[in-house]
C-alpha cells in the first residue's frame, strides 16, 4: 500500500492535476467528509450559564470551586462555601487558572522526537502522533530497556498513583521517585515517629489560635488560601503573631514582632523555648501527663539550652526568646504553624530536629489535635487498591534503587515518601548501582531537582524518556515522547478534605470544560502503557471510574451521588473531639521518640548546626522563597501572573549591595559550589545583610514557554545535589534536599 500511494505521486506536475481529475468528482461535500466535522446545531444547543462543582488542581489543599461556565466557556471560578478548606474563597493562583486552561501554548497532541540531540538549543523536531502510537512507543521504550538492562533500568518520576504503583511492581522496578525530599519529608518523618500517623497533619487551626509563632512560615506571602484566611481571622480576634524569618515577609509585615533570625538557627530558638517552658514549669501538665511520654528526657536534654546560649546562635536577644517562650506557654491556645517552605521544611541539615522540637512545643502547651493547634485529619478509612482489584503474583522486585532509597531504612520507615530526588542524578550518571535507561516523568519539571543542570545531564543520558505535562516545559524538551495532560478544569477526580477537616468531607472534581485538545489524564496513561506492555491480567477491571467508586462507596456515597450533589461535597457531620490515643507503641505522643531510637537515630532534637556556613569564598547565606501568585515552576507562562511578577531577582540588603558595588536593577552573578546564575539585583531592607534570596520558578529556557522564556534565573542551578554516601552519613530520618543549606558569593555580572 505504501509503495502504491507513493507511486501515485510519481507523476509530473504537467499531468498531475489532469490525471487526478479524471478519477475524481467534485461533488457536493457532506459535513462528515470535511477535515473538521460539523453537525446540526440542534446537536449542540446553546448551554446557558451553569455552575460546575470542581476542585482546584494547583496545590495540595485542592480548594473546592464552583466554576461558572457560560455556553461551554469557563468564565469565572468561585470558592465553594460548603467546602471546609476553601470556605468560599480562592487564592490568586486559582482565580488566574482560566488563563492557563485557555493558554494557546498548551501541549495539544501526543508528539514524538525526531532529533536525537537533546538539551537547550536543540529543536526536538516534534512530529504529531496518535495516542495509539504514543502509547506503543512508550511501551516499546520501556520494554527495550528492560530487555537490555533489566527491569530495574526503568524509572518513574511521579506523584503517588495506585495504577503506576502496580505497573512498577509488575515490571519489577523499585524506581518510583517522588518529590517529598524537596517537600514535607522532615515533618512526615517526625509525625510518624512521635505520633504514629502515616503522614504529617496539613490542618492548622490558625483561626482559633491566640498566639501564633511562625518560624519562617509565610502563608500569606505564598497565598496559601486556607491558613491565610485562618490567620486573618485570628488577628481580627486579637491573636498575637510573632515571626522569625531572615526576610521581612508578608507575614512579618502582619506581625506584632519580626525577629530576623540567622538562617538555619531556628532549632536553637525552639530548644531555648523548651528550656524556658520546662524549667519554669509553664507547660500543660495535664496534657503532658495524659497524652505524652518522655518529658523527663526532654527536660534533661533542654537543661543546657538556655536563651543566652540560643541568643548567640540566632542573633535574637535572650530576653526576647525568654519572653516569647513565656507568652507562648501562657496564651491558650498557642500555635506553631508550619509549611514545607519554613525553617522546618526540607531546607537545612537540622530541619528534621526543628520539626521534632516544634511538635514537642506544641504538646507542652497542650494544643496538639485541638482547637487552635495542629489538628489531625478527620478523613475516611483508606481503601486497599490491591483488595479492590486483586492481581496475579508480582515478580520479585529488584532490591536496590537508583537513588539509594533502599539504603536509608531510617528514612523509609518514617516516611510517606518514596525516593530521594537529590541522589537521582548521581546514580544515573555513574550507573550506580546499575544502569537506568528509560523513564516516564509525570508533571515534574526539571526545576524540581536540586542541581538542575546535573539532573538534566542524567535525564539526557536515558535512551527513552516520555513526559506527561500540560505545557512544553524544559523536561518536555528532553522527551522522546510527549503525552499531553488534560488541565484540571477538564478532569474528573475527588479529594478528601485534609487541609481543614474538623469532620470527614470529600469533594468532587467535575470537568468544567471538555478537553480542548487531544489530551489524557495520567491515570489513563499508566493503564494504557501497562496493557500495551502485555500486563492486562494485572489490571482486570481497573479503571479510574471503578477505583473512584470503590472508595466512595466504602465511605457511604458514590460517584453518581456526589456528581449530582448540589454542593459537590459529601460530609459526615460529626462533633469534633480531640484525639486521646495515638498510634505509637505507648499509645501516646512520644516526645522522646523511641521509634527513632530503634533505628539508631537521635530520639530527641538535640542541637545540630546547619551544614554550611558563610566563608571567604561563599560569604552569604542563601534563601529561597516563592512569589504569592506563582506555583513552583508551573505558572510563569500565565500572562496574568507574568504581568504581576514576571521574573525573579536576587534580593540584597542595601549595605551589602553597596559593598558589592551593586545597584538596584544591576545584573548580579550568584555562585554556589555547584553553579552560577545571573539575574537582576533587588535592593531591599527586608532581608538580613548576610543573606541573599532568590524566588523559585523562573529562568525557563524552553523557548516554547513563550511568556516565561528567559525571564530571571533558576536558583536550582545553585543547590548542591547529593551522593548516597552523603545521605547515609547524615543519618537524618527526614533526609531532605537541604535546599537552603549552602552559601553563595555575589558579584557584579
Amino acid at each position: 500500500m505504501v509503495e502504491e500511494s507513493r507511486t501515485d505521486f510519481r507523476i509530473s506536475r504537467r499531468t498531475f492535476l489532469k490525471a487526478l481529475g479524471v478519477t475524481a468528482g467534485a461533488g457536493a461535500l457532506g459535513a462528515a467528509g470535511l477535515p473538521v466535522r460539523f453537525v446540526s446545531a440542534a446537536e449542540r444547543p446553546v448551554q446557558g450559564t451553569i455552575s460546575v462543582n470542581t476542585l482546584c488542581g494547583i496545590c495540595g489543599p485542592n480548594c473546592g470551586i464552583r466554576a461558572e461556565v457560560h455556553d461551554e466557556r469557563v468564565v469565572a471560578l468561585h470558592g465553594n462555601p460548603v467546602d471546609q478548606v476553601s470556605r468560599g474563597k480562592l487564592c490568586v493562583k486559582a482565580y488566574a487558572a482560566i488563563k492557563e486552561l485557555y493558554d494557546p501554548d498548551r501541549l495539544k497532541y501526543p508528539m514524538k522526537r525526531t532529533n536525537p540531540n537533546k538539551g537547550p538549543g536543540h529543536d526536538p523536531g516534534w512530529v504529531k502522533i496518535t495516542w495509539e502510537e504514543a502509547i506503543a512507543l512508550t511501551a516499546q521504550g520501556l520494554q527495550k530497556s528492560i530487555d537490555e538492562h533489566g527491569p530495574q533500568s526503568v524509572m518513574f518520576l511521579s506523584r503517588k498513583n495506585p495504577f503506576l504503583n502496580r505497573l512498577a511492581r509488575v515490571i519489577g522496578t523499585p524506581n518510583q521517585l517522588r518529590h517529598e525530599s524537596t517537600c514535607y519529608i522532615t515533618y512526615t518523618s517526625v509525625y510518624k515517629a512521635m505520633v504514629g500517623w502515616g503522614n504529617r497533619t496539613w490542618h492548622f487551626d490558625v483561626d482559633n489560635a491566640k498566639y501564633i509563632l511562625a518560624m519562617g512560615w509565610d502563608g500569606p506571602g505564598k497565598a496559601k488560601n486556607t491558613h491565610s484566611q485562618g490567620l486573618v481571622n485570628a488577628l481580627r480576634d486579637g491573636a498575637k503573631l510573632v515571626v522569625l524569618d531572615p526576610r521581612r515577609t508578608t507575614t512579618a509585615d502582619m506581625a506584632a514582632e519580626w525577629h530576623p533570625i540567622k538562617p538555619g538557627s531556628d532549632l536553637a530558638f525552639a530548644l531555648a523555648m523548651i528550656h524556658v517552658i520546662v524549667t519554669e514549669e509553664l507547660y500543660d501538665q495535664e496534657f503532658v501527663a495524659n497524652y505524652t511520654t518522655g518529658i523527663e528526657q526532654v527536660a534533661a536534654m533542654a537543661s543546657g539550652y538556655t536563651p543566652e546560649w540560643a541568643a548567640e546562635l540566632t542573633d535574637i536577644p535572650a530576653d526576647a526568646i525568654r519572653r516569647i517562650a513565656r507568652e507562648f506557654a501562657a496564651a491558650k491556645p498557642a500555635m506553631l504553624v508550619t509549611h514545607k517552605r519554613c525553617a522546618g521544611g526540607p531546607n537545612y541539615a537540622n530541619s528534621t530536629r526543628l520539626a521534632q522540637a516544634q511538635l514537642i512545643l506544641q504538646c507542652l502547651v497542650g494544643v496538639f489535635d485541638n482547637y487552635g493547634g495542629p489538628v489531625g485529619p478527620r478523613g475516611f478509612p483508606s481503601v486497599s487498591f490491591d483488595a479492590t482489584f486483586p492481581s496475579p503474583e508480582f515478580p520479585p522486585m529488584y532490591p536496590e534503587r537508583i537513588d539509594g532509597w533502599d539504603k536509608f531504612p531510617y528514612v523509609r520507615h518514617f516516611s510517606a515518601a518514596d525516593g530521594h530526588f537529590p541522589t537521582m542524578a548521581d546514580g544515573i550518571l555513574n550507573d550506580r548501582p546499575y544502569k537506568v535507561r528509560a523513564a516516564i516523568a509525570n508533571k515534574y519539571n526539571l526545576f524540581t531537582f536540586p542541581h538542575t543542570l546535573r539532573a538534566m545531564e542524567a535525564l539526557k543520558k536515558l535512551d527513552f524518556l516520555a513526559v506527561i505535562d500540560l505545557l512544553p516545559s524544559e523536561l518536555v524538551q528532553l522527551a522522546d515522547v510527549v503525552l499531553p495532560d488534560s488541565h484540571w478544569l477538564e478532569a474528573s477526580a475527588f479529594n478528601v478534605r485534609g487541609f481543614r477537616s474538623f469532620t470527614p468531607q470529600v469533594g468532587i472534581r467535575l470537568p468544567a470544560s471538555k478537553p480542548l485538545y487531544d489530551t489524557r489524564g495520567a491515570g489513563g496513561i499508566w493503564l494504557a502503557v501497562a496493557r500495551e506492555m502485555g500486563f492486562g491480567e494485572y489490571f482486570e477491571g481497573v479503571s479510574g471510574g471503578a477505583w473512584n467508586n470503590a472508595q466512595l462507596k466504602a465511605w457511604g456515597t458514590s460517584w453518581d451521588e456526589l456528581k449530582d450533589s448540589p454542593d459537590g461535597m459529601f460530609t459526615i457531620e460529626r462533633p469534633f473531639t480531640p484525639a486521646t490515643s495515638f498510634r505509637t507503641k505507648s499509645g501516646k505522643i512520644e516526645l522522646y521518640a523511641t521509634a527513632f531510637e530503634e533505628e539508631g537515630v537521635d530520639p530527641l532534637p538535640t542541637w545540630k548546626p546547619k551544614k554550611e556556613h558563610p566563608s571567604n569564598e561563599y560569604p552569604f547565606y542563601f534563601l529561597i522563597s516563592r512569589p504569592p501568585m506563582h506555583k513552583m515552576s508551573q505558572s510563569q507562562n500565565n500572562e496574568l501572573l507574568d504581568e504581576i511578577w514576571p521574573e525573579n531577582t536576587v534580593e540584597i540588603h542595601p549595605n551589602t549591595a553597596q559593598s558589592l558595588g551593586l545597584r538596584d536593577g544591576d545584573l548580579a552573578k550568584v555562585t554556589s559550589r555547584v553553579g552560577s546564575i545571573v539575574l537582576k539585583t533587588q535592593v531591599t531592607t527586608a532581608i538580613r545583610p548576610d543573606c541573599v534570596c532568590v524566588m523559585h520558578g523562573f529562568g525557563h529556557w524552553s523557548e516554547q514557554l513563550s511568556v516565561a522564556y528567559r525571564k530571571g534565573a533558576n536558583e536550582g542551578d545553585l543547590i548542591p545535589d547529593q551522593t548516597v554516601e552523603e545521605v547515609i552519613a547524615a543519618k537524618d530520618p527526614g533526609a531532605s534536599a537541604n535546599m537552603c543549606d549552602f552559601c553563595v558569593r555575589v558579584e557584579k555580572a
Partner: protein
Amino acid sequence: MLQDGNVGPARSTIYSLLSRCFADHLVVDSGDVVATLSQAADPAVLAFLSSQPTASPVLAKLEELTEVLVGLGRDEAAELAAQREFVLLFLLPTGVQPYESVYRDPERMLKGTSWSEVRAFYRRCGLAVAEDEHHPEDHIASELAFMSLLSSGFAPETVDLRHEQRAFLQEHLLTWVPELVSRISQHPKADFYRRVGDLLSSWVECERGWLSDPDA
C-alpha cells in the same frame, strides 16, 4: 456569479483543501491528501479557476502546491520535514497560533470573544462543530471547513447562503487571515506551509474580489 451551479462546489472544494492542510499534518500514505487534491483537480474546479481573471493566482498557487506535494510523495525526508513544520507552526507556541481569538482578542487566549461570535455564526447557519473535534470553532481549519459547507449549499433552507458567506468572510476570515498568512510567511521555519499560506492568501483575496462585485 456566486449563484452559478458549478461555482459553489468548486469553491467548496478549495475551502476543503485548505481546511485539510491546516487541520492536520500531511501523511501521504493516508490517502486523504490525494483525495482532497483530486477534488481540487476536478475539471469543473480547474475550469472555474481558469475562467476568472482574479483566480489566476489561485490556480498558479494550486499548481505550485501540487508540485510540492508530488515531491513529498517521492521523498520521505521531505514528508517528515513537512510534518515537523506543521507541529512547529501550528501546535507549538513559537509558531503562528491558528486561532482567531488569539489574533483578535486582547487576552491572546482561546475561547475569547471571537470564538463566541464564530460559534454563534455557525449556529445561525444551523451548524455546530462536532463535540469530539479537537479544533475549536475559531481554528482556521474549522472556519475554512464551515465556508466549504456553506459554499456547497450544506445548510438549512432558511439560511441565506450568499449573505452568510459574505458576512463570514467580512466579519471573520478577512479580519485575521491576512495576518495569519503574514506570520506564516515570515516564520523562519516556514517552507511547505508558506506555500499553503500563499494559496490561502490568494484565495481569500479572490473571494474578497467577488464580494465587492455587486453582481456576484
